[in-house]
Structures are given as structure tokens and as C-alpha cells.
């Protein structure tokens, strides 16, 4: 059963937050992913490419300029699910659609939304599947990308120790 308190969050959006795409952050992300593509770190080579400058690896949208504002819908949903006993929270998958490249110096606006909450029968009983969507626009208002994330919440198999 989808917890009653969780249902109210379906379709709700959280306030957008602003993200800055800095050269150092791009390089550290690409390093951590083990991707040595010069487009992500070598300005001279990147300028000769079709992008005209350093770009971010697809899937990297910079760091928030300020702490991310209170994600009332997303955090409210997660609290409702956890309070109903679904303490084991796992990312289930992620999708990206890319519309335009992200260039160094871009200022992106990320708008998250609770897309859906469904239930699914798993090996360890009922699981709650929360789907989130985030839309990214650049400083010109052009859509850059959309991400779709699924999180699976289940009740721990060993319920001897309850943690909140």
C-alpha cells in the first residue's frame, strides 16, 4: 500500500536552484569518472572542437551556487515513506535526455519534481517506487537536459533494529 501521506506529493515541484558550471568542477568530475577526454579540461583543444569551449561530460550539471533550497516535496515524500517503515532506500536507475551541450561558465537552473509514486511487489515484500524528474535550463532559458530518477524504498528484512 502506498502510504496515504505520500500520495499528496505526486506531481509537486520544488523551487528551482541555480548551478554554476566551473572548469575545476568539470575536471574533477571527469577525473573521478576516469574520463580523460580533452574536451573536459584542455581549453585550447576544446576551442577547436564543434563546441568551441570546454564542455561538461553529459550528466554533469555543475554545483549548486547556494545550498539547495528546502526540497519540501521530495524530502516530504521521503519522510512519509520512511515513517511508514520503508527504511531501506536505494537508487534504482537513472535516465538522461540531452538537448544542448553544457559549456563551462553556464549557469543552469534545475527544477525538480515528484513525477510519480507507485508500488511494486519484490522478494522482500511491497516496495514503494518514487520517480523524480529534473529539468535543466541554461542562462538563456534554453532546455539543456532532463533527468529521470527512480528510488526504491523497502522494509528492511531484519526488522530487529529500527532506525530513523
Amino acid at each position: 500500500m502506498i502510504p496515504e501521506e505520500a500520495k499528496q506529493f505526486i506531481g509537486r515541484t520544488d523551487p528551482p536552484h541555480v548551478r554554476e558550471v566551473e572548469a575545476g568542477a568539470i575536471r574533477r568530475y571527469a577525473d573521478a569518472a576516469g574520463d580523460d577526454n580533452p574536451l573536459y579540461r584542455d581549453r585550447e583543444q576544446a576551442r577547436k572542437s564543434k563546441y568551441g569551449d570546454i564542455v561538461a561530460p553529459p550528466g554533469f550539471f555543475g554545483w549548486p551556487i547556494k545550498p539547495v533550497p528546502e526540497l519540501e516535496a521530495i524530502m516530504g515524500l521521503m519522510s512519509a515513506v520512511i515513517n511508514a517503515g520503508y527504511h531501506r532506500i536505494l537508487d534504482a536507475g537513472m535516465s538522461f535526455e540531452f538537448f544542448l551541450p553544457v559549456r563551462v561558465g553556464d549557469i543552469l537552473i534545475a527544477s525538480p519534481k515528484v513525477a510519480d509514486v507507485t508500488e511494486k511487489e519484490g522478494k522482500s515484500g511491497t516496495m514503494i517506487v518514487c520517480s523524480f524528474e529534473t529539468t535543466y535550463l541554461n542562462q538563456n532559458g534554453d532546455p539543456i537536459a532532463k533527468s529521470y530518477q527512480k528510488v526504491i524504498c523497502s522494509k528492511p528484512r531484519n526488522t530487529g533494529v529500527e532506525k530513523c
Partner: protein
Amino acid sequence: MLGHQVFWEDVEVGTKLPPLPKIVDSVTAVKWVGAIGGFNPLMYEEEFAKSQGMKGPIVHGLLKLAWLVHFVTNWIGDEGTLKKISCEYRGVDYPRRMKTMTEPQDGETWFCKGKVTDKYVNGEDHFIVLEIGVENGSGVVTTPGDAVVVLPSRG
């Protein structure tokens, strides 16, 4: 990136992409968490990871997705464009532990693998659809996914 550019006409349904090996250890796992600014203790704290039913800190799903992005963008080359990519985190992976401060213990090497499942033209764009995945050291695909790319055409 690559000296070699793959063209849409060079590729057929069933064409396999050259596998890309990847290793993650405790240090690179933490480096990743810092690079994305997503500080979930599941990726670095033993006790918390165990409370979530894991054997220890796990490899972040998004890192495996970033590996797949590397794998696909490396293959499509500078003139190719990644349009869509997705994956499911079906199996849990654990980073290699450290032998020294900088060197991992012997252990698992992961491979990004993929093959072409469809190709079509829509308007001006020449599309390729790929089935992709991250395979663990035991040959199990823990992170299956797919991608849609546009390749340059010789036409």
C-alpha cells in the same frame, strides 16, 4: 578524443563496441562522491552501509552511469552526439579496498560493454540505438542500460 571517427554507415545492428575496463577503489569512490557533491554515507561509511543491508560501502550508481557515458561518448567520437542514456542499478558493486594509500588491492575489474540494436534516420539526423551495461568481475551485468546517439553520415 579519438583520432578515429565512427560514421553511421560503418555500423550495423549487432556491431559490438570495444569494451572499456574500469576499476573503482575506496579512494576513487570518495573522490566521486566529492566531485558530484552528493554525500550519501552509503558510499563511504561501513556502519551506515550495513544498516542499509549492504556488506559495506557500495559503488554509487551514478558513477557506473558516468562510466557508461564515458564508454559511449568515447565510441561516438567528437562528431557524435549522445541524445539519451539510461541504466538500472540491478546489482550492487563494492569498490576494491586499498593495499596502500594510493594503490588498490587486487580484485574486480568492471567492463562497460555494448552493442548496436537499431539504426534509423529521422530528418537530417542519423540515429543509433545501443544496448549497454556495466559487467562485474564475475561477468554479471549489474547495470544494464541503453543509449541513443547521433553519428555523422558519409552521405
